[in-house]
């Protein structure tokens, strides 16, 4: 019999490329670590990554590799014309869609320079910590939805 708290969390991500470089994204929970591997699909770097966890769990998304001096391109007016970024397109827990909370309302990233942003567009190096503190997907799903 399978453990009732064993499940997966899945992220669909879009990557903004600068000078053939992408941000590095790592998903982890405890010792379980997955390096996200983007693929070029119709001119756009995309990834679909699944991390298996046992609830309750803390899931960490680590974003790195962006140099703010070289990986953001501005025009003469100071507007950004090209950016290295990661956009979170879709999040689901064992197949249950969490986009409403995690995409539309955003996730909070603590950046390496000590700031905090709630967004689904990640343009900084930093970490998102998801505290999935419930013992199974049913309770966790509604706990997130009712936040």
């Amino acid at each position: 019999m399978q453990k009732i708290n064993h499940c997966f969390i899945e992220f669909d991500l879009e990557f903004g490329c600068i000078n053939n470089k992408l941000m590095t994204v790592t998903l982890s929970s405890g010792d379980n670590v997955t390096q996200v591997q983007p693929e070029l699909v119709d001119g756009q770097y995309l990834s679909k990554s699944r991390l298996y966890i046992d609830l309750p769990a803390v899931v960490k998304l680590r974003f790195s590799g962006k140099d703010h001096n070289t990986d953001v391109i501005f025009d003469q007016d100071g507007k950004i014309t090209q950016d290295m970024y990661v956009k979170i397109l879709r999040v689901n827990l064992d197949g249950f869609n969490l986009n409403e909370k995690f995409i539309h309302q955003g996730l909070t990233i603590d950046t390496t320079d000590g700031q905090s942003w709630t967004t689904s567009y990640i343009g900084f190096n930093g970490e998102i910590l998801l505290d999935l503190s419930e013992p199974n997907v049913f309770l966790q799903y509604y706990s997130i939805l009712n936040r």
Partner: protein
Amino acid sequence: MVVLSVPWTETTFAIMAPAALKPVVEKAGLSCLAIDLNGDIVNLVNSHPNREEIISFFFDGYVNKNIESWLNDMFISAASQIVSYKPKYVGISVFSYLGQHSMKWLAYFIRKLDPTIKIIIGGPGCLQHNFTGPAPLAEELVTNGIVDYHIRGDGEHALFELLTGNDDYSGINDPTWKELNREELSLLPIPDYTDYDFSIYNKKILGIMGSRGCVRKCKFCDYIENWKNFTWRTADHVFSEMIEQNKKYNIRTFKFQDALTNGNLKEFHRFTSLLSEYNRANPDNSFSWSGYYIFRERIPTSERDWELVAGSGAEILIVGIENLNEHIRYHMGKKFSNASIDFHLEQAQKYGIKINFLALVGWVNEVRKDIDYTKKWLDEHVRFKDVITFQWGGSLGIFTNTYLDRHKDELGITMIGSNPQAWINKETGSTPEVRAEWVTELNNHSKALGYTVHERLDNHFILETLMNAKN
């Protein structure tokens, strides 16, 4: 195999589907346990201190702190019980959209506990707007691997084919499906309720099915868009099922679960004659029945027909009267006069038969004066308040693939949202808010006159959804 119904369907008797499918499964060579899970859960919830909040979950999927642990335990416990039988297949029958949350979580936990069990879902509740249109939840569950098969439409033959190895059969993970024809309908085995616990119900009642489809072509109806043909079982066949079920379960009250009992008049006359004869000969074990019934225009034999209906043990006839304005009924495709309604009500009163009127408020051309006429009709027919009960509905919805849906432009209908009730008619000024007010007005007026009014929870839900969408 385990076949079960899922909550929420508030009903005074057990849902038929698991009992109807049990002999189909057995015919396919598997043993089968038919579980009336809906009945068990409804029974539990009705005595729960957070009853309203739990029922609300089945409507909108909202879970608050008061009920999350109860719901979690309920789903895990039900799934664990089902898995403990070690079935090869689990079939989940979803009667209405109110069963979608249960279907989803029950399937999820069964899959979690034992991924080797094949899960099959079916029933009108798997679809977005009843029988027609897309089935996004069912498709999502199949895509996500929570469910293996979604059976659409008539499920008896599709289930048999699936269990005997033909999962390419029409209706299995397939938007098209094949209606049972009359011969196939008459060959269906009779439902087996052996596994049901009737003690959870106040009165012992059995569901029965005599036909599929409808003889009328009402413009609002989505049911006829799938069941294109009216098919029926013979009166003798239905009557013999009643006799057999009575012998087996000592049940004497039957509720027809089809769209109408008197679609085929020849068979209906035969049926009421057989039952009248039986009831006269067996006064201590007489049968009674209720079901959907259509009013027709009065003809010379109508009085004799009512005598047979009464003798056959008819208790409650559910009549889709839809509107008390004759011109609106004609526009809908229901061509019987108000004079005939009066005649039928007099006959029902004479024999003590209850008539449950189902109404649709806010027809595409309905205006204020029609609501005023309805109120006048109610005033003038108070003498029938012991006969009629009303269900004013949640106002007219435009369902996918119906005549109304296909003729929106010429009828002046403009959709303003994805909800079937979200439409306006600029010419008449009909809006969801106006129609919701009309429903409330007719509810209140008929109650004030002393009529019995059934206010359905899902209608409140529809109105609330519209109000929330507006805000």
